[in-house]
């Protein structure tokens, strides 16, 4: 009898003493691609400033913006620029935002170590392989290039909820979320690594960070960006940090962003301090979590946008495929 009555008593006591609590926390949410950067920043920021509190969620870029427009979070992690619809929602909710690119992410197309033929591919070939029309039809390597083996391709790719999937389809097929469906899809990139590692005739794609972590087991495909029948990159480009920074590895590299709520930036000193810290330490921490930092000059432009609390987006609601971030930002800051 006793434990039961104690539990009842505790329950009533508990419900009876509800009091609203105020906590000074910097709330970050959004893309799981950007999360490792924000988490590293949060870790170091909290080490350097005792008493400061930061939380990082991973609701996805879209999920993060949903919370952002409701004013629930201070900073939204995004693996793509804000969309037109999200801009309208922000305007409706009276939310002003500061758009800050913080790093590059690159997608890598990978093949098995024993694959001797497909060391480089064009974006047209990738499109032929991945577009929805390829489903059930393009199943063998020699259908892409006649001299390649007459063997079945095993395809591995990102799950349809991920930003990686959205970005790859946008960059390769030309339309976001438009892809063939008959491939092994997984949100867990380690599954994809294992799949490609295990089959000689496999091909897959995922974030460059995963490729870097499993370099010894996989081979990366050099990408030649063909647009309007012409090579935009002047030959096949290897996915490497240098090529990403130099804006050569296109269209499979993209900028990653944080969007800061202007109201939070003005009214919460801890948010301002955190973003200051973020931009100051971006270069070192971004490469430590295996992403590619922006060039120094670009960080300077970004920092000055932040210092001026300059609101709005420079992308006008469209995807940032194959464009030079430095160019866009430079145009804006004039």
């Amino acid at each position, binding site marked *: *009898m006793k*434990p*039961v009555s104690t*539990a*009842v008593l*505790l*329950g009533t006591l*508990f419900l009876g*003493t*509800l*009091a*609203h*609590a*105020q*906590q*000074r*926390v910097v*709330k970050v*949410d959004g893309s*799981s691609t950007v*999360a*490792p950067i*924000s*988490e*590293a920043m*949060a*870790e170091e920021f*909290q080490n350097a400033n005792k*008493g400061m*509190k*930061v*939380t*990082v*969620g*991973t*609701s996805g870029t879209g999920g993060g913006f949903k*919370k952002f427009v409701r*004013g*629930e979070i201070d900073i939204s992690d995004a693996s793509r620029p804000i969309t037109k619809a999200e801009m309208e929602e922000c305007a409706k*909710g*009276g939310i002003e935002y500061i758009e800050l690119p913080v790093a590059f992410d690159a997608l890598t197309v990978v093949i098995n170590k024993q694959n001797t033929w497909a060391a480089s591919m064009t974006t047209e070939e990738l499109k032929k392989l991945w577009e929805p029309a390829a489903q059930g039809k393009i199943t063998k390597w020699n259908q892409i290039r006649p001299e390649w083996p007459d063997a079945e391709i095993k395809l591995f790719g990102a799950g349809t909820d991920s930003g990686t999937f959205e970005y790859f389809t946008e960059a390769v097929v030309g339309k976001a979320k438009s892809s063939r469906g008959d491939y092994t899809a997984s*949100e*867990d*990139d*380690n599954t994809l690594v294992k799949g490609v590692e295990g089959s000689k005739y496999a091909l897959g794609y995922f*974030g460059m*960070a*995963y490729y*870097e*972590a*499993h370099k010894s087991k996989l081979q990366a495909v050099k990408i030649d960006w063909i647009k309007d029948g012409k090579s935009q990159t002047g030959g096949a480009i290897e996915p490497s940090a240098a090529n990403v920074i130099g804006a050569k590895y296109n269209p499979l590299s993209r900028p990653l962003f944080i969007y800061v709520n*202007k*109201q939070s930036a*003005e*009214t*919460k*000193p801890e948010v301002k301090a955190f973003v200051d810290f973020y931009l100051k330490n971006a270069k070192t921490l971004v490469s*430590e*979590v*295996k992403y590619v930092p922006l060039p120094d000059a670009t960080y300077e432009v970004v920092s000055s946008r932040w210092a001026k609390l300059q609101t709005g987006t420079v992308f006008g609601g469209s995807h940032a495929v194959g464009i030079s971030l430095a160019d866009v930002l430079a145009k804006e800051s004039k």
Partner: protein
Amino acid sequence: MRPIDQTIRRGIFADRVFSIIGWASLLFCLCMLGLLLYSLLSDGASRLSWDFLSSFPSRRAAAAGAKSALVGSLLVMLITACTAIPLGIAAGVYLEEYARKNWFTSLIEVNIANLAAVPSIIYGLMALGLLVYQFHLGQSILTGGITLAFLILPIVIVATREALRSIPQHMREAAFALGASRWQVVRDHLLPYSTGGISTGVIIALSRAVGETAPLVTIGAISYIAFLPPSPFSERPWLPATNAQRAIAPNAQEGPLASGLDDMARPPHSGTIEVRVRPAQGANTTPVTTTLAFEPSMSIEDLRAAFDSVEGLSASLTPSGNLALAADAGSEFSLANDTAGLTRALDLDKGGGRYGPVEWAWSPFTVLPIQMFNWLSRPDEAFAKNAAAAGLLLMAVTLGMNGAAIFVRARMRRRIKW
């Protein structure tokens, strides 16, 4: 007719066959459990140490720990238990002992059984709409705990009813015959006799809850958190030197703020606030206290002027309509003893004082399974070891709860004599 010895031999044979099947089933279950434990141990045992329990998550796999996730899981479970156990047992007792048997109670019965089969994410969606947006409980431990309590309530209710039903009817009749009221029968006989069965159901329910992620992710549990909820009665930090406060009514957050701001930002009634200023980290120094008087007739500009008049504090209005308070550099401040109701009305941070006994329940949180997923999705394989170690922790928590149930059951059985 078959000779008797043949019948007996057949019976013995059937007995043997069944015991072998039963034994093999048991062995199969144990093997699966053993395999699971072995794979977790072989990956995670090397990471299990005091450091793992007492460190926050980190980008370096070897330095990362599960402190915030472990504390989060335990606190969420505490709220879940405090909510679901009394509610579930009370509802079960009512349905079994008090409610009249008619079509309405049958309808409720069927629906409770059905609720137990609803996918957990549905509970998360309901909690997001009801607890987070309707009741403004925030994306907090409290919301998480209540959400999981909803999830396991049907299991607790059903377990309670089954336990009560297994008590022979003559126990009730004997008690009634001696003149006991219904409540006396429930309190002195039925509940003690059924504690074993109820606690088994409760523990199974809690073990399910502790492994849940979907509803918690839906209500906004986060994946990276490196601080603990405030302990009861611990000292609340003072406000830092620069501090911009929101000077808008809490319910005015939805629309654009520009218009009507002046009307909303008025003190609700007359009273005073003590503004205290002291050197930063000067917990032992005596703060300088200034008492400000407020009247409902004061406008936002009057409020600003009042705060600005305090020695060592300056107040200004930001373009977006916020009241910015700043102590002189190197000092911090707090707003205490607010009898004007201003801090509550304007949702201002107060700083200073002590945390209330249950204020931890409003903290953001993460739980062990979410932390496991976070680690599993990292490119670096070293994080997989951390995930396995967190899995072992989770198993240890479940084992602890099961141990408690076995203990309670054994104790109760010893006390019952009929």
